């Protein structure tokens, strides 16, 4: 129930890469949570999925606005 500033920083880096390339959401985020922050795999998978629903439409929206 605590908000971890290091997870925020890591998520910002992964989010930047996802927005830049469109690839690597779960493939980078979940291993980061498990290997770097020692979060239980089941928790990491569930939390990553819920966060992806929030961030991916935003990235798609930005790209749609910029599309020719």
């Amino acid at each position: 129930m605590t908000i971890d500033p290091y997870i925020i920083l890591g998520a910002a880096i992964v989010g930047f890469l996802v927005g830049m390339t469109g690839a690597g959401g779960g493939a980078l985020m979940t291993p980061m949570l498990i290997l770097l922050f020692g979060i239980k795999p089941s928790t990491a998978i569930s939390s990553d999925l819920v966060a992806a629903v929030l961030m991916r439409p935003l990235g798609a929206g930005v790209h749609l606005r910029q599309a020719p």
Partner: protein
Amino acid sequence: MNLRLVRWLVLGSVPLAFLGAAGLPRCLSAQPDGAPVPLAGAAALGALAFGHVQFGVTASLAIGSVPGVFVGSLLSSTAPDRYVRPVITFVVAASG
């Protein structure tokens, strides 16, 4: 938006990474951002119902990744290809 392209990406988004590394990233790299959203939505519903969602972890991820995605997609749709391509190569190498 080319609907057939989106459908193709949902079926096979892995080869896309190689396309991006090989040299046609711009028009394609926006598509995989949007294509798996219904898929992720269904998976997130399942995780919320049966999984182990922890509010603190999810909130931290959302707070960090939302501005990150915003800046990243803004940059990738304006920056020249030669800056985007090395990043795509890194992501493919790191996640593959």
